[in-house]
């Protein structure tokens, strides 16, 4: 179906249009170079914060003894989720404006699914019996992950201020979820607990929280 199909509907507004008023003199707006600089600074700031946080809290004591495969899955799972979330946020179609919200949503959810799947089925340690201790450790880690994600979310939202012309809510949510996924990857080198429930809830739930925060912040990134 093309617009040819609709030609029997006449244009009720005709072709009359007033002459455009003279271009207004608005205050200067940042050009591409300035925006790229801002984004590069944000990336540097995010990486510095994550490294600083990990250094401050300290690496997990069993890191050296951990099998390489287990460590790769623990770190790689959230990183894959982060890359897919970033793709959901920044991918554009042939006209470089945006992509269908369903495509972005599916990409984001696929990433979350990969993370959840790897956490649940490739866990490198058992959870303790569901008890007060388990939930305390889950809560403690989700607070740490939230702290690890908070600064990246803030910096990335500022870096992508007025950047999304189409689908801003979903893309901002995906951008924030990508930051949370990076935080979850960092948690894998901080937290020695490898049980599926602990990792999925303690490290992974922040993706959902960050996505909700991203939805709230959509006005900042919308063009």
């Amino acid at each position: 179906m093309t617009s040819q199909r609709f030609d029997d509907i006449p244009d009720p507004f005709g072709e009359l249009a007033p002459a455009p008023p003279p271009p207004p003199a608005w205050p200067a707006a940042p050009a591409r170079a300035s925006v790229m600089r801002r984004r590069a600074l944000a990336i540097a700031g995010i990486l510095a914060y994550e490294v600083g946080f990990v250094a401050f809290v300290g690496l997990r004591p069993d890191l050296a003894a951990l099998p390489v495969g287990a460590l790769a899955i623990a770190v790689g799972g959230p990183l894959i989720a982060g890359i897919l979330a970033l793709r959901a946020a920044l991918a554009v179609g042939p006209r470089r404006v945006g992509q269908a919200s369903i495509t972005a949503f599916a990409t984001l959810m696929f990433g979350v699914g990969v993370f959840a799947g790897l956490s649940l089925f490739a866990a490198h340690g058992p959870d303790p019996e569901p008890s007060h201790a388990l939930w305390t450790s889950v809560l403690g880690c989700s607070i740490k992950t939230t702290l690890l994600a908070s600064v990246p979310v803030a910096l990335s939202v500022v870096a992508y201020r007025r950047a999304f012309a189409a689908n801003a809510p979903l893309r901002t949510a995906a951008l924030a979820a990508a930051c949370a996924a990076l935080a979850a990857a960092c948690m894998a080198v901080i937290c020695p607990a490898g049980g599926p429930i602990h990792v999925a809830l303690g490290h992974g739930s922040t993706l959902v929280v960050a996505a909700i925060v991203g939805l709230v912040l959509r006005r900042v990134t919308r063009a």
Partner: protein
Amino acid sequence: MNDHARNPSLASGAAESAAVPELDRAMDRYADGDDGAFSSVYALLYPRLRRFLLRLSGDATQADDLTQETLLRVHRARGSFLRGASALSWAFAIARNAYRDQLRSRARKGQHQPLIDPDDEGAGGGAHASPDAGADQWVMARETAALLRDAIAALPVAQREAFLLLRFEGMSVAEAAEVLGATEAAVKLRAFRAYETLRSVLAERAAEPRAER
């Protein structure tokens, strides 16, 4: 007589199509920091945006305000305009954001979407008819145009946007899908539903006994 001479909208459509690469180049220069390119961007975008927003909002004053708001947003977001992007699609997506923001703001204040004043010359209103075409025909065209404007204003926003982009802005389904952030199938469905509604309005109008008109 060629098609363009018979139908002025075809002639202006052809001129606008020719201006698209020029707009893309001007927007690219503007995004790179060339402030002198703004006058070209403004001159090329203003009529297209104003017309789209007039059809979308159904109100000439609102369309003027929204066009200024959209161009201000284009100016503020220029650094985020991707190299090689379609400036028109990008600006239409921003115009849609501005319109939706205004709808939300009006909904919060409890204001309703106004229907267009049939005597508002800024809205066109003639649907390609002029008094020269004969008084009867001219009155009928104006009445049909008013009826269609009301029917378009009554469409759900998502259907209206899709239909206007395809029918009046000359966009392909793929282009409209990118502006609206929807799949091509969704855009086709929305536009077709709008078309069906408008066609039934026109059919009812045509079926009315002449004496009732």
